[in-house]
């Protein structure tokens, strides 16, 4: 780490720089004289940029930091007329702006017919360029020659160096942030940035210099994460996908991919959150690099298995050349960058609640387990139809704050410029919606317990079970202990794993490919997002022994009640299915105790474990390295651990900034140790 990088990292971690931002909350209500979406957008953008002041921290070579800690308010009759959560959880095609530069894009736009859409695109570019000119002047005045020189070229023109390319992207990200876009991810950074990186290398720029630039860039994108916090501090969508394979099956993991891994390893900060695309062709060495990063305890890399994901996306109707270019949205949803507006996280299925309701209603009249499972399938179908109906028109999606127009995202989405339509008005290719599948393990464990105790062993009668559930097991401790001892997912027990397979099959078969009324289809997934806590709260006791309100497992993982035999059994339990049929995204999450990494053998073994997961046909894997003692201490003494990072669901954040219930969930997960 160079001294410059060290200085920047210190600046980031001591957080003092945040005081330089204004805490004032600007109010544009009444100042915005516009009626259309685009009119409001550009007016809001103009006012925000007018107020933003160029702000450099230390010898920051990127700038474009927020000078206001909070977004401006803009209300009309008490209703926000420019709400946040406007297009979110998406990956644009940065190269659509970066390759030509904004001047050329502008020239092209001026040749287009005059209408609201093209006017908005032009306006957004004009405002961006005007702001960059102000920044350039400020850079000159503050003696930041490097930034000044770079801003003389970008973003008007195509970048001439890797540094300029990063700066170009930082400007775009800044504009997205001030216009309240959330969870816009970096996508396949190592691919679209590679030409600039390679040109520098070919020109004789040293690896060291490029590494310093990359590290400074990574630090720079951490500076403002506290100003856009998503559901929880750290849930900011700054994901990055590295590696992958081309159509011929050749690895596209390059020198820049490696450098990104190494920078992340050295910096140990929460962003970017690294995803690594792997397959059965991935060399062991990449797994070792990944394991070194896992050891840091940041909760990434997350692994995505091309062998499962790509065929899965093709089955859903994606063109093979798009499927091969997949990336992940903010957490783990598989999407295609710059080719539409997909909402893979628009809603979620609460499997445990469906199961509990089916048991309440149909256990008595189900003479055998097969009959009960038929009711479960019907319950899942009913829930699917309910959820589909909630989002079955653009109007309804808009009511839920989805599908808002964005001139900036349209500039970076293929087809919009040509079609003259916004990316949220179907100017591009893919408009699919995704439904998470939360609590699969709780649902499967619950049904396994019913199958075993009611139908197979006949060790309890139906009324007793229903009464115990209704009473949240109060007065039924022995029964609950028996239920807890029933087969659970995570221990490679076909008895329960087969039931999970059935549940997933019902879900996938009745949802995948169903039209969504906005020109796309529905996709079923294995994720939970924050629903593992939220659904847990509203779901009463379940027959796996879980009590009222207790959380579900995070995404596709053993429940908190299960005591898995070990990581190999857990991998087997969660890879017995053809996961390409349920490919909206959502990882198997496993916790490793930090003592696994006590010596270098540990890295080797964790690397092997990930490889085994991939060879087993898993789709997505997320490993956490935790030290329970340390986390308990961090709850008691947060001041001692200001920079302790943990993975929460699809993202990593600083432990001390999390709500206690999320802290506790992490503590309750089984940690595999030696």
């Amino acid at each position, binding site marked *: 780490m160079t001294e410059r990088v060290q200085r920047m990292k210190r600046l980031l971690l001591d957080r003092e720089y945040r005081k330089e931002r204004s805490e004032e909350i600007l109010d544009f209500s009444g100042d915005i004289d516009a009626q259309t979406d685009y009119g409001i957008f550009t007016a809001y953008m103009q006012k925000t940029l007018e107020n933003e002041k160029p702000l450099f921290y230390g010898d920051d070579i990127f700038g474009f930091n927020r000078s206001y800690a909070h977004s401006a308010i803009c209300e009309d009759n008490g209703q926000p007329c420019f709400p946040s959560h406007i297009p979110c959880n998406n990956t644009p095609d940065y190269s659509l702006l970066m390759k030509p530069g904004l001047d050329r894009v502008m020239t092209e736009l001026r040749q287009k017919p005059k209408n609201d859409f093209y006017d908005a695109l032009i306006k957004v570019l004009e405002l961006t360029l005007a702001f960059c000119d102000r920044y350039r002047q400020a850079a000159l005045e503050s003696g930041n020659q490097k930034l000044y020189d770079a801003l003389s070229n970008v973003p008007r023109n195509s970048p001439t160096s890797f540094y300029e390319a990063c700066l170009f992207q930082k400007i775009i990200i800044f504009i997205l942030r001030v216009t309240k876009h959330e969870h816009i991810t970096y996508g396949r950074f190592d691919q679209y940035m590679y030409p600039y990186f390679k040109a520098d290398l070919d020109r004789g720029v040293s690896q060291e210099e490029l590494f310093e630039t990359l590290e400074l860039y990574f630090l720079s994108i951490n500076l403002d994460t506290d100003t856009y916090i998503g559901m929880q501090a750290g849930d900011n969508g700054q994901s990055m996908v590295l590696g992958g394979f081309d159509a011929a099956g050749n690895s596209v993991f390059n020198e820049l991919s490696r450098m990104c891994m190494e920078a992340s390893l050295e910096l140990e900060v929460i962003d970017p959150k690294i995803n690594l695309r792997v397959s059965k062709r991935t060399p062991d060495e990449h797994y070792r690099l990944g394991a070194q990063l896992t050891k840091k305890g940041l909760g990434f890399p997350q692994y995505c298995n091309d062998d499962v994901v790509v065929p899965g996306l093709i089955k859903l109707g994606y063109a093979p050349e798009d499927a091969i270019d997949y990336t992940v949205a903010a957490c783990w949803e598989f999407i295609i960058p710059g080719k539409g507006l997909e909402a893979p996280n628009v809603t979620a299925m609460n499997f445990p609640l469906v199961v509990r309701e089916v048991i309440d209603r149909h256990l008595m009249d189900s003479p055998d387990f097969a009959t009960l499972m038929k009711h479960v399938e019907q319950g899942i179908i009913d829930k699917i139809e309910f959820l589909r109906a909630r989002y079955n028109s653009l109007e309804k999606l808009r009511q839920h704050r989805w599908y808002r127009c964005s001139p900036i995202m349209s500039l970076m989405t293929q087809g919009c410029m040509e079609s003259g339509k916004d990316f949220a008005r179907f100017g591009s290719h893919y408009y699919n919606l995704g439904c998470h599948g939360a609590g699969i393990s709780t649902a499967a464990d619950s049904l396994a317990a019913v199958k075993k105790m009611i139908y197979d062993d006949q060790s309890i009668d139906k009324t007793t079970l229903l009464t115990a559930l209704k009473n949240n097991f109060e007065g039924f*401790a*022995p029964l*609950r*202990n*028996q239920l*807890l001892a029933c087969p659970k997912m995570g221990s*490679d027990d076909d008895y329960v794993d087969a039931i999970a397979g059935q549940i997933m099959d019902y879900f996938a078969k009745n949802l995948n490919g169903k039209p969504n009324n906005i020109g796309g289809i529905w996709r079923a997934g294995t994720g939970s997002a924050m629903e593992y806590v939220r659904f847990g709260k509203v779901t009463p006791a379940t027959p796996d*022994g879980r009590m009222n309100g207790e959380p579900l497992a995070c995404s596709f993982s053993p429940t908190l009640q299960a005591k898995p*035999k*070990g*990581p*190999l*059994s857990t*991998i*087997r339990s969660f890879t017995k299915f053809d996961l390409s049929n349920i490919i909206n995204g959502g990882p198997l999450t496993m916790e490793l105790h930090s003592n*696994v990494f*006590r*010596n270098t*053998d*540990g890295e080797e*073994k964790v690397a*092997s*474990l990930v*490889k*085994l997961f991939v*060879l*087993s046909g898993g789709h997505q894997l997320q490993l956490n390295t935790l030290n329970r003692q340390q986390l308990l201490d961090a709850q008691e003494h947060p001041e001692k651990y200001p920079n302790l990072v943990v993975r929460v669901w699809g993202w990593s954040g600083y432990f001390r900034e999390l709500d206690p219930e999320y802290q506790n969930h992490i503590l309750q997960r089984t940690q*595999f140790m*030696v």
Partner: protein
Amino acid sequence: MGAIFSVEEFSTFDGPGIRMTVFMKGCPLRCMWCHNPEGQSFHSQYVRSQNGCLHCGACLAAGGGILTADSISVCPQNLIRLCGTEISPEAMIQEIEGKLWMLNASGGGVTFSGGEPLAQPDFLMSCLDMLEGKTHRAIQTSGFASKEIFAEALKRCEYVLYDLKLMDSELHKKYTGVDNRCILENYRTLATSGKPFITRIPLIPCVNDTLDNITQTAQFMSQLGVTKVELLPYNKAAGAKYKMLGREYITDFDPSVPPQSHTEVFEHYGIGVKIL
């Protein structure tokens, strides 16, 4: 039949690659620092986890003053379990079989540990025989066994993890309850057998981390041409499981003193040291 108390799937310190380790129940030694006290008795025992215990007394009431099968079901926190399973070699192998490809793909295998695996020779040999040619087999042993049993086990595995605790036979008796003569004898056999193995020394503060003991150990090893050793510094958490068994962890050494590793002594004798 064999008695086991746990099967670990990802034991990263019990040999090469990803390994499944079968912890066999029962040990003829009583090391004062033993961190797996549930591995000492050959019999199954009811154990109660401490974390989360409400001290409601329901378990003892149900069992008439002791923990029994009835205690398991009444515990409101589900903290009581039976530690120890009687299992046939066939059932044992069946449990491992589905994961063999995973172990093999990582260059790993199966390790029999304990307790003391050599204390259940029939079960051990049957298991090792059934795994022959299917995976990499290892045993982790104190070496306390007859030379016949040791030789039989040695024939049936590819790797041995061997503990050397104390060279002085009186001290060995005091701290482990048994004489070390057969241990040193079997070690000689191992060191001259050509079988790959690793020597492990648990470093216990002021017990065997003395310059005297380390020097004697290094001399003994070097005479046999041994060139590497792994040291396991005593962990303060070693006593954590005694309460679970209703026992007290009593030592005559001070667990808070960090043990000395004297790596220079081993290096002087040409023995490479790895600290785990």
